[in-house]
């Protein structure tokens, strides 16, 4: 899933300071699963904005709505009958959501209510970790199913580097060295020699280095 965290309330209050009618829009996709942008969090943010207004003796109206997904135009369309009642919209979907809303409703002020962090998963309840950097050409099968691009601090394709110690990365004791994990896993499987196979340098044009990406699936295009 795409993992995000709430923006500080102060930052959000500053964004919408000049608006009296605010719509908070959630998304039932990834951000619901990582407890940051679903219907529940829409309610919490809306309530927080109302409490802030109460404290400052200001009159505001805060609407709440949660879309099936904010990254699909057909669902974004659903707002067309309600969005006009509001001067500003806070989207608490990942960064894709507020952009899709801005594109569909260019006359509205759309604000991001979360900071989008990475593609990953929940390793424990309440703890998420990065797993994929979206490089565009997946190679994890060469590395015991572990991604050196997303999980090595230097995205090394040949590791570990000299900073690996006791299974930890030199960048932080909180980061497991993925190259330590890769080597140990392949040793256990008796496949360490796989790492000696010659492979040409990775083609980074499919990653962000090739500029903003677009995907066309002819069989699906109407």
């Amino acid at each position, binding site marked *: 899933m795409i993992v995000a965290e709430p923006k*500080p*309330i102060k930052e959000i209050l500053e964004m919408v300071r000049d608006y009296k009618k605010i719509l908070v829009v959630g998304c039932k996709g990834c951000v619901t699963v990582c407890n940051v942008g679903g219907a529940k969090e829409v309610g*919490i943010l809306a*309530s*927080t904005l*109302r*409490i802030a207004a109460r404290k400052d003796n200001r009159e505001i109206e805060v609407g709440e709505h949660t879309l099936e997904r904010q990254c699909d135009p057909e669902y974004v369309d659903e707002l067309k009958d309600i969005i006009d009642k509001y001067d500003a919209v806070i989207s608490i979907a990942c960064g894709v959501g507020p952009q899709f809303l801005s594109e569909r409703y260019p006359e509205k002020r759309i604000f991001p209510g979360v900071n989008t962090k990475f593609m990953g998963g929940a390793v424990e309840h309440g703890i998420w970790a990065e797993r994929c950097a979206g490089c565009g050409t997946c190679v994890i099968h060469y590395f015991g199913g572990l991604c050196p691009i997303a999980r090595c601090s230097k995205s090394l394709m040949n590791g570990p580097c000299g900073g690996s110690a006791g299974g930890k990365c030199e960048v932080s004791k909180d980061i497991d060295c993925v190259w330590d994990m890769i080597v140990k896993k392949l040793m256990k499987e008796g496949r360490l020699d796989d790492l000696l196979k010659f492979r040409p340098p990775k083609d980074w044009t499919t990653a962000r280095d090739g500029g903003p990406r677009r995907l066309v699936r002819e069989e699906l295009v109407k």
Partner: protein
Amino acid sequence: MNDQNSRKIIAFCCSNCASSAAGISHKLNETLPENVEVIQVPCTGRIEVLHMLKPFENGADGVYIAGCQEDSCQYISGITKAKKRVQHVKKILSELGIEPERIEAFSLSAARGQEFVQIARDMTDKIKAMGTL
């Protein structure tokens, strides 16, 4: 609100321990301050962050949760979860420039009727001193 000085306080109370304590306090002829409105819940673990925020949104000046002792919660970890959420709500209040002490969580056992009333009185005094939100 009863008069200008009495601030509305919402008390979410677990029906296993805190509410039994309330029953005992009643027998002891100890009455709760009038500004404290008790909402009984089957377990404090069910009280979400939003439930804790709503009273503030709707005019309350203080909120507290009264649940079991952490090691004797009827549903294992209800009060522990509630306390974590209270900490989160305190953080939200602080970020809004509101005193985080306006929300608290307390652990009680079913037999502590007097303490139940004392918590309500202490919260009332504290919130009165802070004034309206």
